[in-house]
């Protein structure tokens, strides 16, 4: 979940009401924020993935204003003469874009921090690290209109933070940001160029040094471009709504080869919800009037007509898909902790899963036989699984380390590894485990429940484990036979396949000395492994 940091005084300035830290902490749960604490002037909050409008002080301030009943609607945007020509060349390189202008801002360090935070969170959490969409912010008064969004084979400009002009190719190879995002520029270079041919930016990589925002900036130009049209449009709307808390928003007319739009486009959406359905889902008895009041606290204008609520969705909210989402807005505004919990009364009889029950019975028998239960990871290293060969196993495509790069197909290798880790302790060692394993035939994978027991002792023999197997099978009520087995992990002639109902249900035997050597075990080990699915 996104972590957001806001300055206390900045937030209070944006809210426009004197609230204490304690007040803010109290409001946080009702605006779907987790209070993470205060560090100096910084308030740390955790917001949720469904609410990209909440990754900035501006969005949080608006939510607080809604909740405490202060005006919080998005002000109307202004018409303007700003024009951007979108050249068809860029439609193949980075096709979607939206732009707008913000005038009359007061540039503070807090605002700069918020601009950086919004860009970082939006890029990482919602825009596939600049592939789907990326944001650029510029000083409006450093370039000349109209501007062009186009793609070029090569061009020169001074990138942000550099002192000299570079070719686009140089920008991608010689600057840090260039190297980070070069993979997003496959063909020609997308560029925003002003009337005089000066570059504003090479999206999504770097802006130009000349158009950067400074301490004297009072008017901003913003662009959002990317490969996902829907995300570009949403991000532009979210950003414009957020910055409307700081200044006046002006449209930019974007002229595409075949159409023209006023950017940014704010959606005008409304939805309906049934008060009865809301109350049924929550278990509440809110009147339509109460519902309207609670929705207002969440920033929604609503009207009631009988049981039906007509709800206007604010332009910065993209997370509503179904009336249940309206119900949650009402529940959050009311406060989860204000509800009196009820006990669900569904009379049922509890039943253990047959395989879990059988596992428990096998475990009881083995504990009784003096074995210590152990718990090991299902993920395993290929090295261990190959050192004690067993059924074919599945490998991970993206392991983090060589210790966990495969899925165990039986328990014995894990237990040999376990015994090796304890070889400094006095013998005998008797361990067992009843847990899941995954086998594969190369086409499909199958999760199975195995039980395995091992004895490590200077005098450990087949016969000792044979007795364990025999009493275990008696106690689990299963007839079995042993037939001589050939198995790479066990000593030839001292290995048996456990047959139940004519099917192979497990294996028992003395571990082969070459396997013991591979695990650096110095005493004989005798092991038993059964598939409990076969014993049901």
């Amino acid at each position, binding site marked *: 979940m996104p972590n957001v940091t806001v300055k206390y005084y900045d937030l209070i300035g944006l809210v426009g009401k004197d609230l204490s830290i304690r007040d803010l902490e109290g409001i946080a749960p009702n605006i779907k924020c987790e209070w993470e604490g205060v560090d100096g002037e910084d308030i740390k909050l955790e917001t949720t993935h469904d609410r990209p409008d909440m990754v900035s002080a501006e969005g949080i301030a608006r939510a607080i204003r809604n909740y405490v009943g202060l005006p919080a609607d998005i002000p109307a945007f202004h018409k303007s003469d700003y024009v951007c020509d979108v050249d068809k060349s860029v439609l193949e390189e980075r096709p979607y874009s939206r732009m707008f202008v913000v005038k009359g801002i007061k540039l503070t360090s807090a605002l700069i921090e918020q601009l950086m935070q919004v860009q970082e969170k939006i890029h990482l959490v919602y825009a596939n690290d600049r592939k789907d969409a990326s944001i650029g912010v510029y000083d409006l008064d450093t370039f000349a209109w109209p501007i062009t969004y186009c793609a070029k084979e090569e061009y020169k400009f001074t990138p942000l933070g550099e002192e000299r002009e570079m070719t686009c190719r140089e920008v991608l190879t010689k600057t840090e940001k260039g190297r980070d995002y070069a993979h997003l520029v496959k063909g020609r270079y997308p560029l925003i160029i002003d009337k005089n041919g000066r570059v504003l930016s090479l999206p999504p990589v770097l802006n130009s040094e000349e158009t950067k925002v400074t301490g004297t900036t009072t008017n901003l130009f913003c662009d959002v471009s990317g490969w996902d049209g829907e995300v570009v449009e949403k991000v532009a709307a979210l950003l414009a709504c957020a910055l409307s808390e700081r200044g006046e928003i002006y449209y930019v007319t974007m002229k595409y080869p075949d159409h023209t739009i006023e950017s940014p486009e704010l959606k005008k959406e409304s939805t309906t919800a049934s008060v009865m359905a809301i109350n049924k889902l929550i278990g509440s008895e809110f009147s339509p009037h109460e519902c309207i009041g609670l929705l207002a606290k969440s920033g929604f204008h609503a009207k009631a007509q009988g049981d039906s609520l007509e709800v206007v969705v604010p332009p910065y909210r993209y997370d509503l898909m179904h009336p249940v989402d309206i119900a949650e807005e009402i529940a959050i505004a009311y406060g989860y902790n204000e509800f009196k919990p009820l006990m669900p009364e569904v009379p049922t009889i509890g039943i253990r899963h047959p395989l879990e029950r059988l596992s428990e019975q096998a475990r009881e028998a083995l504990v009784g036989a003096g074995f210590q239960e152990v718990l090991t990871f299902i993920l395993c290293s290929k090295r261990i699984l190959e050192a004690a060969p067993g059924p074919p196993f599945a490998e991970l495509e993206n392991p983090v380390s060589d210790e966990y790069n495969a899925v165990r197909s039986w328990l014995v290798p894990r237990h040999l590894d376990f015994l090796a880790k304890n070889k400094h302790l006095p013998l005998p060692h008797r361990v067992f485990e009843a847990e899941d394993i995954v086998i594969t035939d*190369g086409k499909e994978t199958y999760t199975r429940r195995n039980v395995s027991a091992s004895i490590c002792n200077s005098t450990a023999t087949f016969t000792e484990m044979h007795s364990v197997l025999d009493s275990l099978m008696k106690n689990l009520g299963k007839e079995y036979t042993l037939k001589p087995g050939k198995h790479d992990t066990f000593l030839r002639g001292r290995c048996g396949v456990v047959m139940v109902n004519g099917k192979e249900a497990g294996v028992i035997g003395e571990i082969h000395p070459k396997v013991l050597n591979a695990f650096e075990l110095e005493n004989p080990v005798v092991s038993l492994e059964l598939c409990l699915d076969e014993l049901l």
Partner: protein
Amino acid sequence: MDTLHEHEKIILQALEKGALTEAELVKATGLQQASVSHASLWLYSKGLTKIDEAVTEWVELNDEGRKYLKEGLPERKALKLLAKSDVSAKDLGDKIGPAESRIAMAWLMKSRLARVEKGVIKLTEEGERALNSKLPAEEALEALNKKVESSKAPVGILGKRGKIFRVSENKVRTVMLTDKGRKLVDKGIEIGNEVNVLTPQLIKSGKWKDTKFRAYDITGVAPPMLIGKRQPYKALLDEARDRLTSMGFIEMRGPVVETEFWNFDTLYQPQNHPTRSRKDTYYILKPNRGELPTDHTIKVRQAHESGFAEGSRGWGYQWNPEKAKELIMRTHTTAVSAHAMAEHGDKKGKYFTISRNFRRDVIDATHLPEFYQCDGIIVDPDMNFRQLLGMLKDFAREFAYTEEVRFRADYFPYTEPSVELSAKHPDLGWIELGGAGMFRPEVREPLGIKSEVMAWGLGFDRLVMLKLGIKDIRQLFSTDLKWLGDVSLRYEMK
């Protein structure tokens, strides 16, 4: 008296007339040296005897000294040569070696057995006499061939000849009765008709009636023994399973290698969701695709693309069945709940599972790549969010033993409303127990459920660590057999 071993009684009796050394006790009792030593110590620990330990120092030739004894002292070698003829100092050195010749010359001159005239060594009269008698140093060597108590050892006569003897210590223990021991002996000691072991013969023959059984000293330390028992983490999860069963839940089970379909798509997580990436989730290399079910796939696809459930607009993207087929390590047990919904449909029911999940993470004191999670659902047309809160409160009482809970709004793609549960622990303060919510219509309706479904997922790791008193999460899967054997079964006692 009854607790005395037979050997102890024999020794007490032998000491009746006075103190004896251990060696004397061996002679007097006919017991082995070791038995005498052991029994003397037992008696001492019971306060029946005193033990005086006298340390004596002994001197004896070492290998170098024995060599001298065998080959003769350097001065003897010189005397033998001089008996034949006078020799020069150089010749003497050539014959018996420079080192020995230096020692020989020093001693011959010091004892006036020889003199030097113009570079030639000649015997004196005393020297002539010494040819047929032993030198005092030779007598001393012979005496030291056996151990001699250091005060009587003639080491001075040998003078400075380097290390030719060694000194050793010998402890002599003298055992004597204490007053308590004396009283016991005066009462008379009975030896002979006590038995150590109760044998089958004694039992069957009835001879036990005439047998006196020696009492054991039962205050000693017991030899260690390994018992078999359940793994502590699993034992606590067993308890949770029993509680849930007793609350009327039916246990479910599902595969640990899962298709994205059941892990994500049925739960309405869009295919571009960040967790559905190689960064957060483990993918299987081979086979890398599983099968999609015939009966639910189309409906789940419709849910993603256009909502499926009445009133929903869905995510509005083009759903890719190939992505849904990818095989992964299950990331949450909510996938098991999805299977259960598909299997049981609209029938009223309560289900749970406590199973393993996987996340792509490095392993350290606070992160494990595998963890247990407890997931469950209640399917019922009349279920509502307040009942879910009541259920969660009940869980906090059952699993965290607290009435103090806190609910916080949270976000999961598959539930609405969604809630996070925290419980107040007396020592740790607020701890997060898990997330819950009412399954969205886009989740339950494609799986054939019109009823409401409440769903929850709880993590027990922190509670278990607290109960077991462990700080490092890796210890939940401890590989230390000693710790597993020693950890108390009564976890609540810490």
